[in-house]
Structures are given as structure tokens and as C-alpha cells.
């Protein structure tokens, strides 16, 4: 034992020396954290781009924390409020998180490039009253729109409604198809306020009153709510999405669509990559233009942005990463590989090639890109409104209650107005 002790001691000391003295110059590397959620393969693409960035910039390492979408919506605001959040995150509630946003202008290589290419979307990320800040860029521009199972239409021998068809035309057609092929979901609409507003915009809702404040329940809104309510009563929509959960819970029909149980699925452009992969050759699917109504055919814009936060300890390094990722060639590659519609005016003008896209995905991208050009200014204003998600959440929560038969539609509409007013008042309490 006595003979062993000096050996152990010297080994331990050597190990300690090796650990302390032999460390690489790690102190010079700045580590940044990026919170990221994925719908398709975009997480893999981003990881690849960040790896390439690190090869070119050895002094900055970005750790990509891949988290669920729910975590970005629910946990991130609390993390940021407590000062413990990531340096950068991919978010959808840009307005809600704008109070935590970092204005990167002093650190960016060329703020003019950002203004020129991301100008209209920067408003979505700026705190109320701020017209100058540059907090991030859009990783993708999304538009809501329907996907249709073409094979089910063919099997049923029903003709698909044309380009300017109304919601009623589609409802009638998908009901007929579902009846003939025994599909349980004639029309599926994501349980999401954003998707509801794609319908509401086409029904002519104005969202805001004359004073610029939200006036949610107007005639257009009531028409849209009545349609959703009636479709559930008549079996065009199944209660399994809107009626089976409570509160603001999101519920999609991705699994049902890929299992050929849905004839028409109102979702959006971010699903293209996923359907291209999961549906593959099981059946033919197509994206179709947003159906029309008395208010037009506009869909709802949206998207995800990569935002930098002011709680970061390394704003210069954050800006370098963002400059790299927002640069035209890198962003073009990101969108091409992820099958995303770019939220970059220069790229929109030039157009993007999607070499990896399947014929279905390429056709869908074409449809959604065309839809993006027809989005109404009101739809853009609604998306950019700082309290838009308060409205969206109140709508799904209360409309869900009406759909499940718990309340009347009139009661639900009264509650929506009250909920929106109460939550905005709470947010404004200082």
C-alpha cells in the first residue's frame, strides 16, 4: 500500500497539471446559445451552417439547443424575463418577445442591407413605438393555405374546385369526397388562431376599430366563426381537433393527413418539407390557393424569425453570427435546403431554386409563393400587431368551447371580446 501511494499521488498531480496547463486557448472562444425548434429538416440545415461558420470564425462557437415548439412559446419568455435566456432564438411570437429584443444596429456590418432586405418584417419584431431597431431576420415567411389529398378526390370521382372557389364550394366538395371514400376528416383546420384568421380575412373581418384598437368580433369575424361552428355540426370538420382539448392548446392534423384520413387540411407553407418526406409516394397531394369569401382570398402571413436578445453578454459576437446567417447566399441555401419561402426581399425578387424538392413540394412552394404576393395589408398588420397572439389565443379557446357544445357561439364571442380586453389591460399594467 505504501508503495502504491506515491504512484497514485504523482499520477493525480500529472493529471491536474495536464488539465490546467494543457488546455487549449478556450478562454478566447465565445460560446453563444441558440434556441431552435423545427417543423422539418431546418434544424439539421442550421446545425450545418453553424458548423461552417465556426470553421471560418474559430473565436465564436454557437451551441444549437433544439427544443420543442411549446418550449419556445411557453418557457422562453420566462427565461428571458429572468435574464437567463439564450443569446439568439428562433421564435414565432415576435411581437410578444419584442420587449426582450436586442437592437443590433451598432454591431452589424451593414445595417442598410438589413433595412433593404428585411424592412417590412422588422416591424413585427420591434417594440411598440420603435421604428428603427434591427432585432433579427425572418428565417422563413409563411402563408397559411390548404393541402389537398388529390388521390382521394380521384378515387371519389369528384372534381376539385378551381382557383377562385369559395370556402363553401370546398366544404361541399370535401364532404362529398369524404362520404364516398370513408375519410373521417373532410376538412381539418389546425387548432390555431392564425389559421382561423385565414378564414376570417376572407370573410371580411377588420380586426381593428376606428381608433386602431382591436375590435375583434365584427361581421366578418362572425361569418367565419359561424362557418367553423356549422362545419362541426354538419360533420365537415371533426371535433377531434377543435373540440377535444381545452384552452389555447395547438392541435394539428399532420398525422391524420399523412395517413390519408384528411381530404383538405388548412395549415401552411412550413409543412411542405414534412409532407414531402412523410407522405412520399403514398398518395398525391397538392397545395391549393386560399379559398375566397366576401372579403377576398387573402391568407394569413406569418413565419419564424431568428431574434437576438438584449440579455446577451456578447452582442458583438451575436451580430457577427446574425450577419453571416442573414447574408444572401447563406439564407438562400438555408431556404433552398429547408424548402422555405424566404422572408428576404432580394431573394424573393430573384427567386430560389429548390433542387432537393420533390415535384409535389416544388408545386406547393410555387402556390404558396404566389399566395404570399396576394396577402392583404390588413393581414400583414394583424400579424405584426404586438398583441395579435392574445387575440388568436382567445379565439381558439372560446371557439373551442362553442364547438364542443359547452357554450353558445354568441357567448363565446362575448367572452372573446372580454378576454382580449382583460389580457391587454394586464399586459399594460406597470
Amino acid at each position, binding site marked *: 500500500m505504501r508503495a502504491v501511494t506515491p504512484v497514485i499521488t504523482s499520477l493525480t498531480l500529472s493529471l491536474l497539471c495536464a488539465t490546467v496547463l494543457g488546455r487549449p486557448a478556450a478562454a478566447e472562444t465565445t460560446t453563444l446559445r441558440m434556441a431552435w425548434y423545427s417543423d422539418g429538416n431546418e434544424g439539421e440545415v442550421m446545425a450545418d451552417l453553424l458548423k461552417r461558420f465556426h470553421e471560418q470564425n474559430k473565436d465564436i462557437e454557437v451551441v444549437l439547443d433544439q427544443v420543442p415548439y411549446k418550449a419556445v412559446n411557453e418557457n422562453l419568455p420566462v427565461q428571458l424575463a429572468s435574464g437567463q435566456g439564450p443569446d439568439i432564438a428562433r421564435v414565432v411570437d415576435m411581437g410578444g418577445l419584442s420587449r426582450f429584443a436586442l437592437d443590433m444596429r451598432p454591431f452589424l456590418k451593414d445595417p442598410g442591407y438589413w433595412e433593404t432586405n428585411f424592412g417590412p418584417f422588422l416591424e413585427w419584431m420591434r417594440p411598440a413605438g420603435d421604428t428603427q431597431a434591427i432585432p433579427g431576420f425572418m428565417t422563413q415567411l409563411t402563408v397559411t393555405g390548404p393541402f389537398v389529398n388529390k388521390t382521394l378526390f380521384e378515387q371519389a370521382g369528384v372534381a376539385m374546385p378551381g382557383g377562385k372557389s369559395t370556402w363553401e364550394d370546398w366544404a361541399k366538395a370535401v364532404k362529398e369526397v369524404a362520404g364516398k371514400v370513408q375519410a373521417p376528416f373532410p376538412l381539418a383546420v389546425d387548432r390555431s388562431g392564425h389559421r382561423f384568421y385565414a378564414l376570417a380575412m376572407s370573410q371580411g373581418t377588420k380586426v381593428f376599430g376606428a381608433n386602431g384598437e382591436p375590435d375583434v368580433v365584427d361581421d366578418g369575424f362572425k361569418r367565419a366563426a359561424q362557418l367553423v361552428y356549422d362545419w362541426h355540426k354538419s360533420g365537415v370538420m371533426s371535433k377531434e381537433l377543435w373540440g377535444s382539448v381545452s*384552452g*389555447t392548446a395547438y392541435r394539428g392534423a399532420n398525422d391524420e393527413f399523412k395517413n390519408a384520413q384528411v381530404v383538405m387540411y388548412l395549415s401552411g407553407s412550413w409543412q411542405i418539407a414534412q409532407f414531402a418526406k412523410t407522405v412520399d409516394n403514398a398518395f398525391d397531394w397538392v397545395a391549393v390557393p386560399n379559398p375566397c369569401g366576401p372579403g377576398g382570398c387573402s391568407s394569413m402571413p406569418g413565419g419564424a424569425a431568428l431574434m437576438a436578445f438584449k440579455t446577451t453578454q456578447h452582442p458583438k459576437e451575436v451580430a457577427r453570427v446574425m450577419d453571416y446567417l442573414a447574408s444572401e447566399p447563406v439564407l438562400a441555401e438555408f431556404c433552398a435546403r429547408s424548402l422555405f419561402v424566404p422572408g428576404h426581399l432580394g431573394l424573393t425578387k430573384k427567386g430560389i431554386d429548390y433542387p432537393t424538392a420533390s415535384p409535389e413540394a416544388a408545386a406547393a412552394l410555387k402556390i404558396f409563393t404566389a399566395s404570399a404576393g396576394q396577402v392583404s395589408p390588413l393581414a400583414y398588420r394583424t400579424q405584426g400587431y404586438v398583441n395579435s397572439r392574445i387575440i388568436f389565443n382567445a379565439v381558439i379557446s372560446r371557439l373551442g368551447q362553442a364547438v364542443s357544445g*359547452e357554450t353558445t357561439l354568441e357567448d363565446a364571442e362575448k367572452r372573446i371580446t372580454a378576454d382580449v380586453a382583460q389580457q391587454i389591460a394586464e399586459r399594460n399594467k406597470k
Partner: protein
Amino acid sequence: MSDAPTAARPQPGMAAGALARVAVLPVGLALRVLDPPMRWLQRAIGVRRMAYVFLLPNFAFFGLFVFLPIGINIVFSVTGGTALFPSERPYVGAEQFAYLFDCGSYLDPSSCREDHFWRGVANTTKFVVFQVTAMVLFSLITALVLNMKIRGRGFFRAVYFFPVLLSPVVVALIWKWILQRDGLLNAAITTLGGQKILFFVDPGWAMFWAVFVSVWAHMGFYTLILLAGLQAIPADLYEAAEMDATPRWRVLTRITLPLLWPNMIVVIVLALIKGAQTFDEVFVLTGGGPGTATLMVVQYIYETGFASQVQNFGLAAAASVVLGLVLFVLTLLQFAAARRKEI
């Protein structure tokens, strides 16, 4: 045959002993290090006060992780706004409580300003009534059966206890898989020629399965308590009853149940407390739906404080205080029941 003496062979017991000695080595070392200061402290404050010194770490832990959060929660309940730090939140007094309790009739949630809270209260009450009744009944029956001399008794005792070891989320996901549109149960129903039932779309079915799954998952724990109570009943009472040829039903109602009553009280109160706190299983299973048919109070608190767009910590904290008071009363009941059992 080897000529070596058997004493020289390594014995399994010796190896274990050596291992144990190595394992307790750090403890012995720590005690040696602590001994002088503890002796000094005992001389300084006296033997009687040393009890507090030993209790101090536990008090500190309890204070930090139980009393401090309760205090912070109460502070949040009298503040408003969306700021996270109490110092940045405006004081609003009892405004959050007034908002919660602003009702036309407490029996009609739709007449309340914060109707979701009252729907949560009504659902939780309904859930607790059905769940506790079913839990006590089935735990009792199971304990009585498992106390009998049946073949494979040990195996069945383990089987009934096994779900208790599972995570509530896992339990809910398994049952969701069984109950969904294309789940196992509907496959069985259609195989037998029936129509698929959408269990999570009908409020009655959703509440039924919420209660069922909860009873399935937790029954083993309560069965164990009752089984321990049954085994503590003196055997000579049953022998005397057998000699008197007392009918089985009479043995059950006159000997078993009265002597098991203290354990039953503990089971009832524990199940009540657990039922009032229900969240994870039901949340994963039904999401609180359809509509708000299975929305429980704890889910309301979670959604108000964290999942809604405006994270209304003040209102969520006020609802937590109300729930905390109810749980406090139930805990007092449990203490009273436990004391009665000791007497």
C-alpha cells in the same frame, strides 16, 4: 484434491465485509473531522440546545424550498402585470382574488368573470368525488382478495403495485394510445362489429376515462396501505368468529371493516389531497377537453401562469393560494385522522 487449507480461500462474506469497510471509510473520516467542533459547540450551548443544531439543516432546506416559495406565491397574488420579478410588479391588493370570485352564482361557472377557474373547480370536485369513491372501493376489494390465501399472491401483489411505479405521463400516453380513434380499444370494438367511439370528444367519456386511468395508476399504493391494515388485525378474532360459525359477510362488517377504519380514513384523505392536485395524467390524456370538460384547477393555474400569451402570474398565484387553502384543510383532516388512528 488440493492440499491447500480451506481457510486460505477467499470467502464471499469476507469480500463483502471489505467492501463495506471501504464504503463507510468516508463516513468515518467525516465523523472524525466533525467531532471536535461538535464537542466544542455542545460545551458552548449545552446538551439540550444541540437538538436544534441537528434540526437546523432540515429547517433550512424546508424553509428554502417550501416556505419561501409559498411566501413568494402570496406576494405574486397581490400584484399585477406581466413582469417576473416582484420588485417590478405593481401592488394590486386583493384585486386578483376579487376577479376570481366575481360570480353571479358559484354553481354556474358561465356566470363568473373568470369562468375557466370555476369550471376547473367544478371539474376537480366532480373528479375527486368519483375518483376517491372508486379508489377506496377498488383498493378495498383488491386488498381483501390479496389478503386471502390465493395461489400466486406475491405475484398479484406486485402486479397491482406496478402502475404506481410508472410516470404519470407514461401512464397517460399509454392510455391515450389505447383510447384514441385508431387505438386498441376501438380496434377491439370494430372487430366485434361495433362503431368506433370518440372517447375524447364526448365530455362524459372523457371524464370517465380520466377517473379510470387515475384509479388504475394509483390503486396499488392505497391497496398496500389497506393490506398492511388487514394484516395488523389479530388472527385470533377471525379464529373466534370461525369457531362461532359466523357468516363471512358478518365477519367483514363486524370485524374487518371496523378495525380497518383508521387505515380507510388515511386512504380517503390521501386520495382526496392527491385528487385535488390532479394535473399531469389528465392534462396529457385529455388536454382538459373536450371544451373544458376535464379542465382541472391545477391545469387552469398552469395555463394562466405559463401557457397563455399574457403570462398572468398574479391571477395564477391567487388561484394557487385558494387551492393551497383547500389542501391545507384536507391536510389537517389527515393529521386528525392519523392521530385518531394512533389513539
